[in-house]
Every structure is written in structure tokens, then in C-alpha cells.
């Protein structure tokens, strides 16, 4: 268990990096070389090595779920103890590797993107990155829902701080606010769900016999009882599941809470790569995968997840088609790809979704970093129509970017093809076997493949091909090794990661093995973790959610989606090749306007905030000042008014006082006499 003993260090190392950078920010500038980047790099290297060690240990069959810190002890029996615990299983180990690897690469890339560009406030930047890395790793190893929520919120904070890094401009602070607020809206539901889980099960642990998915399963099987607040057990669990899903929709930018992600591109590009593509946005999907044992019990919630995912995949992909800025294309594409993961989870494809999570982290981080490289070259101009012909000037960026694009578009044999194909395949087989909602979601996902192919190659062609359309593009700024090295690493991974789980190939050749399936399927001989395996999830899906599988060849399904991707890509090549492509999307007319304005999603949300909530607040303020406080002042004015009138009794004339005294005395004597009976 040696590696597991060091597991907390995976989280604490980047946190130490954060503390060092904060210290540097508070002391005089330049106290640390490279603005504090080096401690961060050292910490993420450490985290990556430890993660690898943990992964090896997991591979050897070890699992761990241990309490590391008691946050609030239980003083009496029957009261839940609130703890922080580690859960180290294959899923967590995989995600640890992904997060620490991308974090390391982004730290290195930042040397080129931030340091070489002469930014100020670098310690603040690296502090944010360090805190983010620590929080994200903490989220990944979280062993219960409370700890997951804690780090879920903390990554939101880091996202806020890093999006708003350039706080002196008006745009980034606004985008940061929006990002935090929209995800907070989702987190609200998550928090209600979390509190509800505590109230229902008395625990929020992910693993072990006392974990809430296991308890829920037992309750549904009639073997245990839980407090379901007067609802039928499955109904109540579905409510809880949907509430937790609210947080997922916010964090993973799913419809209708996706609007913050494109705005978040106001942040520095390495941040977009790390937070808004590869890791933080993945937190939502990861959370669903983490508690998949719970969701697999709830067919209604699964259908909702699948529909939301499929719809988001298509919906976001259509918007990518008309965007001008390279980062906007990538942002909507990220939303779309997370839609695929949600589709996969909702359709019962736990492994498929995890696989897509993994490959997407690689190729989308690659694409963002590639875009960052282009943006450096273009002197921070992001408009693709000002680019063109960068292929010759920056070959490393071009070829790695192309690899990422092929993966994104889903062209064989790049990694994205295998994972996206598997997601769609899972949706197809479960959809055909009597789950119409999943089938509809599948259809939307399939259609989105076409758009994905199109916008990906539109982006590649406009950026790198043709003739340079501006002076800047003719003479781009050079990029250094710190930019190229991460691109190469990610490029290799984006190209080859598909081999981890090449299902169609396996079906035909019986080779190579489905590594990822095997990785996630087994409990390593520890029955306490049997409830966290994909085998168990498959069982639950069959027995509890009623998912059956139709017999469809994965090769045929793969060919369909590949064909669609090629059609989309081909259309883009036809339209945008040549030295000076025309802006074809402008021919779409009104449709383009709608797409370019993101279906007016931002508008209605901004309307809700600006034209509904704030005026409502002002009206309430008026009511408060007028009615509530007015009531208070009215009470006081009654006494003031009556006092003002009554004071005229005090004439100031001595004779009047004397007369009153005399009359008063007389009256008193008479009264006393009458009561005392003196005159009888």
C-alpha cells in the first residue's frame, strides 16, 4: 500500500505550489524566477509521478477507500460523521493521470504563453493554476459526495480567478462572474441533492458496503430502508439524482447551463486548455461516472442524461459552424463533446463515456494549446479570418493541431474516433433494444458528427491553409520549446490513445485487448469495491434500469459515423480550400444570425438576470423602504405626532400649571374621600 500512503501528497504538492506563489505575490515582484512557475512545475511533476505510482498499484489489484480527515466528528450515535476520504480505484487513478499530465503540460506551456509575453501578475497566475490543480486532484480522489462538492466548488473558484486574470479589462471580470454564477446555479441543485443524500442515507460515501449507491440498491431490493420523505423509494432517488445532475450540467456546460463556457474564453488560453477543456469541465461527467452505481438504478434519470447529452452535442456543434474566433469554435466544440460523454453515460456506456473523457482531455487540451500557439503567433488576434497560411510558418503547431482535429472530427485511427464511436455504439444498441429516449439522443449525436467534421476542418483550413490574409499572418511571432513540447506530447497521445479501447478492431481481429474495459471492469479481488466496477454497473443497468442490448456490429456502427464525419470534413474542404476561401456561412442568412448569437441563449439568461431579477430586487427594495421600514417609521411618527400635539398642554404659563395643580388636588381629595367614605 506504499503508493496509497503518499496519495494525499498528490493533492498537497500543488497546494504547496499555490502557497509558494501566494507568498511570492505578497512579497516584492521577481522574488521567484519565472514568476513562480517553477514550483508549480515541480509540484505537478511530483503529482504526475505519484499518480503513476498509484496507477501501478491499482493495476496490481489494490484499491483503497480510507478516511484521511474527520471534518466533523459524530458526538452521538445515529448522527452522520462528515469526513474527507480518499477513494483510489481504477477510475480515480486514470483521472489522476490525465489531470496531473495536462496540468504539467499547461504549466510548461504557460512559460511560453505568459512569461515570454511579459505579463505582469504572474505569481497570481501560477497561484491560481496551483490551487486549481490541487482542487481538481482533490476532487478526483474524493471518497464521498461532500468532499466532491467541496472541491467541485473550489475548482469553480479557481476558474473564476483565472478567467478574471486580466482584471483591468472590462471583459474578463464579467465573464468570470458569469462563469461562477452559472455554475453556482447548478451547484445549488448539487448541494440540495448532497444534503438530501445525507438526510436519506446518513452517508455520502462512494465506496464500501455503507456507501449510498449500495444502500440505494439495497433499499430498492427491499433489503434496507432509508428515509424517503413520503415518496416511493425510486422516485425519491430519482429526485436526488436529478438534483445532483444540476451540478453536473453547470460544471460540464450542458444545455441549458452551457452559456458560461464560451465567455470563459476571456481567460488566458492555457487556462482554457486546462480548466475549460480537459479537467474542470470534465468534473461533472466524472461525478456521474463516480456515482454511476446510483444512476444505474434510475432509468428516468439516465434517459434525461442521455437526452440532455445528445441534444447538447448537436446544439453546440451547430453553433461552431459560424464562429469567427478560433477559441469560440473550440469552446462550443467542448460543450458538444461533453454532450457525447453525457450521452454515453445516459445510454449505459460507462466505459465508453470514460474513454471519451480520456481521449477528449488529450485532443482538446492539444487543440487549445495549439490555438494558444497560433494566438501567440498572431499577436493575440483570435479571428480566423485574419489568419491563413500558417502551415508553413509553424509546422509543429500545424501537425499537432491537425492530429487533434482529426481526433475531434472522429477520423480513423485517431483517438476521438474510437471513443466517440463507442459512445454512439452503446447508445445505438441500448436505444434499439426498447429505449426510445436513448435512440432519439443517439440520432442527435449522430447528426452532430456531421457538424463536427465540418467545423473542425473549417477551422483547420481557415487557420493554416490558403494564403495569409493579414500582415500579421504573413510574419507570425515565433514560439519557443515550452510551447512546442506540450503540443508534441499531446499530439502523440491524441493520435494513439484510441488503442486503449479499439472495440471494432477487437471485434474483428480479437486483438488488441480492450484495455480500458478490463481496467474498469474488475475489483482486483477486493469485494468491497465490487460495486464500483463496470461489470456491476452493467448488471444494474440490466436489472434495475431495464437496459437490454440489441445485436449490432460495432464495425457497422463505426462505419456510419466515420462516413458522416468524412462527409462533414469533405464539405469543409470543398468549401474552404484554395488560397482565398469565401465566407460561405454568411450565405446562411437568418440562420447564421441565430447561430452566431448562440440561439439567443445568452440573451434570455442575461435578460433574466438584468431585466427580471434586478428590477425585482429594486421593487422589493422599494417595498422594503416604503412599506416595511415605512411601517416602522409610521409607528414612530405616531408617537412623534402625538407628542407634538400633546406638548401644547405645556403652556409655559405658571398660572395654568397652578390651576391644574389646584384642580388636581381637589379631584384627588374628592376621589380619596369618595373611595374612603369620609363623607358618610
Amino acid at each position, binding site marked *: 500500500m506504499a503508493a496509497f500512503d503518499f496519495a494525499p501528497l498528490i493533492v498537497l504538492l500543488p497546494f504547496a505550489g499555490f502557497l509558494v506563489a501566494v507568498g511570492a505575490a505578497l512579497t516584492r515582484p521577481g522574488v521567484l524566477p519565472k514568476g513562480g512557475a517553477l514550483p508549480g512545475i515541480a509540484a505537478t511533476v511530483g503529482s504526475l509521478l505519484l499518480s503513476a505510482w498509484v496507477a501501478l498499484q491499482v493495476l496490481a489489484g489494490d484499491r483503497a477507500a480510507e478516511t484521511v480527515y474527520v471534518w466533523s466528528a459524530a458526538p452521538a450515535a445515529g448522527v452522520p460523521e462528515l469526513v474527507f476520504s480518499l477513494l483510489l480505484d481504477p477510475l480515480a487513478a486514470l483521472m489522476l493521470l490525465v489531470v496531473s499530465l495536462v496540468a504539467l503540460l499547461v504549466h510548461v506551456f504557460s512559460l511560453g504563453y505568459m512569461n515570454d509575453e511579459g505579463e505582469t501578475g504572474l505569481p497570481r497566475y501560477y497561484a491560481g493554476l496551483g490551487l486549481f490543480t490541487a482542487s481538481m486532484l482533490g476532487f478526483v480522489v474524493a471518497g464521498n459526495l461532500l468532499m466532491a462538492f467541496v472541491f467541485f466548488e473550489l475548482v469553480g473558484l479557481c476558474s473564476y480567478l483565472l478567467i478574471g486574470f486580466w482584471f483591468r479589462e472590462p471583459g474578463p471580470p464579467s465573464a468570470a462572474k458569469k462563469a461562477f454564477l452559472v455554475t453556482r446555479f447548478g451547484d445549488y441543485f448539487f448541494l440540495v441533492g448532497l444534503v438530501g443524500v445525507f438526510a436519506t442515507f446518513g452517508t455520502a460515501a462512494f465506496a464500501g458496503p455503507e456507501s449510498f449507491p449500495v444502500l440505494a440498491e439495497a433499499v430498492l431490493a427491499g433489503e434496507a430502508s432509508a428515509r424517503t420523505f413520503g415518496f416511493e423509494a425510486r422516485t425519491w432517488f430519482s429526485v436526488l439524482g436529478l438534483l445532483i445532475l444540476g451540478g453536473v450540467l453547470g460544471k460540464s456546460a450542458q444545455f441549458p447551463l452551457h452559456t458560461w463556457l464560451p465567455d470563459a474564453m476571456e481567460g488566458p488560453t492555457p487556462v482554457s486548455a486546462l480548466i475549460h477543456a480537459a479537467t474542470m469541465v470534465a468534473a461533472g461527467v466524472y461525478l456521474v461516472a463516480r456515482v454511476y452505481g446510483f444512476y444505474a438504478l434510475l432509468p428516468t434519470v439516465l434517459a434525461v442524461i442521455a437526452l440532455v447529452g445528445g441534444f447538447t452535442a448537436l446544439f453546440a456543434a451547430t453553433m461552431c459552424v459560424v464562429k469567427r474566433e478560433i477559441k469560440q469554435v473550440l469552446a462550443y466544440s467542448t460543450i458538444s463533446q461533453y454532450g457525447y460523454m453525457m450521452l454515453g453515460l445516459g445510454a449505459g456506456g460507462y466505459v465508453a463515456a470514460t474513454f471519451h473523457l480520456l481521449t477528449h482531455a488529450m485532443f482538446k487540451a492539444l487543440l487549445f494549446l495549439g490555438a494558444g500557439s497560433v494566438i501567440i503567433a498572431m499577436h493575440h488576434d483570435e479571428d480566423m479570418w485574419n489568419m491563413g497560411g500558417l502551415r508553413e510558418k509553424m509546422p509543429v503547431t500545424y501537425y499537432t493541431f491537425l492530429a487533434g482535429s482529426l481526433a475531434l472530427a472522429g477520423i480513423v485511427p485517431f483517438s476521438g474516433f474510437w471513443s466517440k464511436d463507442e459512445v454512439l455504439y452503446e447508445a445505438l444498441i441500448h436505444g434499439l433494444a426498447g429505449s426510445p429516449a436513448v435512440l432519439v439522443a443517439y440520432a442527435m449525436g449522430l447528426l452532430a458528427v456531421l457538424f463536427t467534421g465540418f467545423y473542425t476542418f473549417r477551422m483547420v483550413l481557415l487557420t493554416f491553409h490558403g494564403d495569409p490574409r493579414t500582415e500579421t499572418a504573413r510574419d507570425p511571432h515565433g514560439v519557443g520549446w515550452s510551447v512546442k513540447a506540450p503540443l508534441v506530447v499531446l499530439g502523440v497521445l491524441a493520435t494513439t490513445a484510441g488503442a486503449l479501447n479499439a472495440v471494432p478492431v477487437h471485434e474483428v481481429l480479437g486483438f488488441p485487448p480492450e484495455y480500458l474495459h478490463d481496467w474498469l471492469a474488475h475489483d482486483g479481488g477486493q469485494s468491497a469495491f465490487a460495486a464500483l466496477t463496470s461489470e456491476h454497473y452493467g448488471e444494474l443497468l440490466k436489472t434495475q434500469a431495464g437496459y437490454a442490448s440489441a445485436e449490432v456490429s460495432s464495425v457497422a456502427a463505426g462505419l456510419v459515423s466515420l462516413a458522416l464525419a468524412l462527409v462533414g470534413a469533405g464539405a469543409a474542404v470543398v468549401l474552404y480550400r484554395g488560397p482565398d476561401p469565401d465566407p460561405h456561412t454568411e450565405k446562411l442568412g437568418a440562420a447564421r444570425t441565430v447561430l452566431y448569437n448562440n440561439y439567443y441563449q445568452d440573451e434570455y439568461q442575461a435578460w433574466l438576470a438584468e431585466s427580471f431579477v434586478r428590477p425585482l430586487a429594486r421593487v422589493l427594495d422599494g417595498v422594503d423602504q416604503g412599506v416595511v421600514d415605512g411601517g416602522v417609521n409610521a409607528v414612530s411618527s405616531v408617537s412623534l405626532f402625538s407628542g407634538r400635539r400633546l406638548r401644547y398642554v405645556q403652556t409655559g404659563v405658571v*398660572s395654568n400649571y*397652578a*390651576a391644574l395643580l*389646584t*384642580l388636581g*388636588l*381637589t379631584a384627588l*381629595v*374628592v376621589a380619596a*374621600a369618595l373611595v374612603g367614605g*369620609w*363623607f358618610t
Partner: protein
Amino acid sequence: MTTRPRLRLGSHLLPALAALALFCVAAALVLTSTFGASQGFPADANVVASIGRAMFGLGGGDVPGESFLVAFIAVALLLDAALDGSLLLAKREEDGAAVALLSDGGRRLVGRSGEEDDD
């Protein structure tokens, strides 16, 4: 101009009704009350000497009485204070010298009443 008192009748006399009412009530009380027999002083008693002894707390007077020495001293001080106080009140604020009443010969009083006539 010579003046003599005149009885002015009018509504300003109305407050006196209160005094009258008080008198009526008090008189009714007195008249309905019964008193015991008066004890009186002993025939040969030296009342004034007894008062003096009581006032200085010497005791031993012909007529019994209490000791009033402390009250006597207190009243003495009070008189003293009243005298000083009246002097202080009577002083003019500007020069600090005690001045007589109507030091301006009553001109201001006359002038003021003249103004009132104009109203």
C-alpha cells in the same frame, strides 16, 4: 398719575373657581371631621423658653418638644445660600456689579408697553 386699586371683573377670575372648589372640599372635610379634646399647655409653662430649648436641642423645657439643632443649622445655611443666590441673580452680567432694579428709570418698560400699544 395717581392710581388706586380697582376691582376688575372678567373671565380672568375664572381660575379662582378652582381655589373656591378646593376651599369647599377642604371645608367639607374639616367640618365632617371630629377631634378629641385639646391638651393645651400647662398653665405655668414658659412656652417661649421651651421653644428656645427645643430649637437648640438643650432639652428640659416646661413643654415637651424635640431637638431641632440640625434643622436650625440647615435653615441657617439655607438662608445664607438664598441671600447669596439672590445677590447673584440680581447682578448684571456685563460688569458684575449689583445694580438697582429699574436702573434705567423704567424707560425700557415704558417703551415696550408703548410698542405694544401700536399692535
